[in-house]
């Protein structure tokens, strides 16, 4: 049955080159942990992406219960933590995954740095990677506020003060993030929610696409 469906589609749009472009490529021996166990360091990038996928999926499901409103945000999180079957696990995945993804990102960056894999011709991909790092930090910063508990509120207060220290545009930048000149409140929460759920993920997907296309075009850097 499945084969028939595949054949039906393949006959019309010639699927083979498409999946071959995506999936069919050599993994060089020096990056394959099955050959050299120490090659596991090459897995950190893929692991980062794996955790990102978990973050996206768990986040999608969390928005089924979460409300970005200062009266209800904390209550909705409390409700899903205490009343909804398995929601604790999903929020746990999102909560711990947020830290794991930063750890993996750092390990990946360290591997690329210490192996000198960022050198010509791969400088562009390093820059894209740095942008990805900033997007990730932004996701962590904006996501931290969403439960709207004391820790979240004051961490954001401090984070906004830090943003305010940027030369020349600091004050405007802070207002742009917080939605108000002096209050961290209703408008801050909706803004952070929008940034966390729509703006930064959009930037993340675009940058990830460039990151992966560049890897495929340039190949994995050679053995040390």
């Amino acid at each position: 049955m499945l084969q028939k469906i595949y054949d039906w589609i393949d006959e019309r749009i010639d699927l083979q080159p498409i999946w071959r472009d995506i999936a069919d490529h050599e993994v060089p021996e020096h990056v394959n942990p099955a050959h050299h166990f120490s090659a596991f360091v090459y897995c950190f990038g893929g692991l980062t992406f794996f955790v990102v996928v978990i973050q996206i999926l768990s986040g999608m499901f969390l928005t089924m219960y979460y409300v970005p409103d200062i009266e209800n945000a904390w209550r909705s999180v409390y409700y899903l933590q205490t009343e909804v079957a398995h929601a604790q696990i999903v929020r746990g995945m999102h909560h711990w995954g947020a830290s794991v993804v930063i750890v993996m990102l750092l390990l990946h960056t360290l591997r690329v740095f210490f192996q000198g894999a960022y050198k010509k011709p791969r400088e562009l991909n390093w820059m894209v990677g740095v942008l990805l790092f900033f997007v990730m930090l932004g996701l962590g910063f904006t996501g931290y506020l969403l439960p709207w508990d004391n820790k979240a509120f004051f961490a954001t207060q401090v984070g906004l003060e830090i943003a305010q220290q940027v030369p020349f545009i600091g004050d405007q930048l802070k207002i742009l993030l917080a939605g108000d000149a002096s209050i961290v409140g209703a408008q801050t929460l909706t803004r952070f929610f929008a940034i966390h759920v729509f703006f930064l993920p959009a930037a993340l997907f675009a940058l990830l696409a460039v990151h992966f296309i560049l890897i495929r075009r340039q190949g994995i850097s050679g053995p040390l």
Partner: protein
Amino acid sequence: MSEEKKQQVSRRQFLNYTLMGVGGFMAAGLLISPVRMAIDPVLKSTGAGDLANVGLSVDDITSEPQRIDWSIDQVDGWYESQVNRSAWVYRNDSDEIIAFSPICKHLGCVVSWEGSDQYPDEFFCPCHDGRYYKDGVNVPGTPPLAPLDEYEMEIKDGMLFLGDPKPHREA
């Protein structure tokens, strides 16, 4: 003939320019409203808040800073609420009334007068050991980079009215 032709815009160029122009116009038309909406808080003028009676008679203000708390009606977009504010109020040597915001100028914690036994006669922030002299000026070498903010102030019928915190007069 051919010289003349070089000066002309070719059919292809004309189409390119037209399409770019129309496309740019459409992109701008699409983006202008969302961008204006996103930056609205930055452009909104912050209306000067009214001064609030903090319930403290000026006769009760001494040279020793005292903490006073009051609440104001705050409008946060669509959300209106009562929020608490506090200030450290005292009379300085030239008999002026001073009201400092307790918000530390380092990272926004709350400072207290003589908040640490080690530093008498100073405002102290417990978060990163930030310190301020009695006149609100930050002690050099401690984390704060600016003196404490001062509240706008008015005295009506012997009562103290406070407004929004403004940068210290020496800052």
